[in-house]
């Protein structure tokens, strides 16, 4: 439920993948030189060699380093910009969590309700049930407004309809308490692979 831009994730993967694929295909062609594509390969190699030699003519004088190819400087600049963009990309993943679950604006002030209050009403109610192993509540901003996610780990052998019924009752109680209808996602999860290794019985 976080705010990660998934289109951007896929765009990064697609662009990098396609660049790698193109580079790989070009190298295979250059190495194998199949007969049916010999003209195209020859033209491409000729064009590349001409471009490289043209570029090499364009140099910039530095006092310490002598003549430096201008193309190299441009490539270094592009690499620097790309590095900054990638750092921004990595830093902006995730996010969207919020600690305010309800906000009521009155004429002369506003009231904010913290996530812990919703946790005490929604998750604690489910936590005390014997067929629920754990329950926790997280809050995210979805479409500009808070939405709640109630993650419930159920015990094996539970009647799911009972847990879902209890969750719906808790949500109804929360909506009555908050005075607004907050979207709630109830997520039933099983025990993870780690918990499955643990013994099913416990000595009281």
């Amino acid at each position, binding site marked *: *439920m*976080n705010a*990660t831009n*998934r289109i951007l*994730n*896929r*765009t*990064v*993967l*697609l662009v*990098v*993948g396609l660049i*790698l*694929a193109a*580079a*790989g295909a070009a*190298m295979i062609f250059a190495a194998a030189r199949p007969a049916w594509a010999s003209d195209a390969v020859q033209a491409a190699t000729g064009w590349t060699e001409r471009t490289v030699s043209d570029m090499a003519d364009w140099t910039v004088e*530095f006092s*310490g*380093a*002598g003549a430096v190819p201008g193309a*190299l*400087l441009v*490539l*270094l600049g592009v*690499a*620097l910009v*790309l*590095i900054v963009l*990638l*750092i921004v*990309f*990595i830093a902006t*993943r995730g996010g969207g969590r919020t600690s305010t679950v309800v906000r009521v604006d009155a004429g002369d002030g506003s009231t904010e309700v913290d996530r812990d209050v919703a946790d005490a009403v929604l998750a604690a109610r489910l936590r005390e049930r014997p067929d629920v192993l754990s329950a926790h509540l997280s809050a995210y901003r*979805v*479409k500009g*407004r808070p*939405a709640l996610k*109630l993650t419930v780990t159920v015990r*094996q*052998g*539970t*009647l*799911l*309809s009972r847990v*879902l019924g209890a*969750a*719906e009752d808790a*949500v*109804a109680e929360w*909506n009555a308490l908050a005075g607004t*209808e907050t*979207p*709630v*996602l*109830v*997520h*039933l*999860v*099983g025990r993870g692979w780690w918990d499955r290794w643990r013994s099913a019985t416990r000595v009281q």
Partner: protein
Amino acid sequence: MRDVQGVYRRVLRRETHAARTAPAVVVASILGLLLIAALVLGVWAMFDVGFRKTLGGAADDAIGAIDAETATIVAGAVLPGRRNRRGRVAGNAAVLVDDGVLADAAADRVASRCGIDRSQVSAVVGRRTVLARVTPTSGLPVDRRMVQEAVSEAMSGAGFDADVKVSVSERGVVQ
């Protein structure tokens, strides 16, 4: 009144599909490290003319080494990436259930309905079908219809319907 249904639709779609954050971050990190390396080598090449010649061949080798991962990266970008969960909107909340939880519930229901041990039943919940595998106790036949009904009940108890397939093994076990 805000558009609660729209929020549910968006949230359920996002929660039932992979975000692709981890592969994208890994690819971006590797690309970033390669670019930093290229930057360092490029600056080195600026001040060391002899180094420029050796650089070209090394770059070709590097591209060739990474190319093996290309298919995986493109597949990650293009494939839908469904997660093994299913969701629905129920009254005042949206419900999202992991397929493993549904399978456990279905197998439990079958075991108690048919009066066999829980270890003799297994269920696999796929995207559209639920497969229940039952190993009967030796000498006690298992009613397929009863198994089917038990699975359907467990699924509809959580609010989902599915195409139920039952497979009863030929050989029973001795309890």
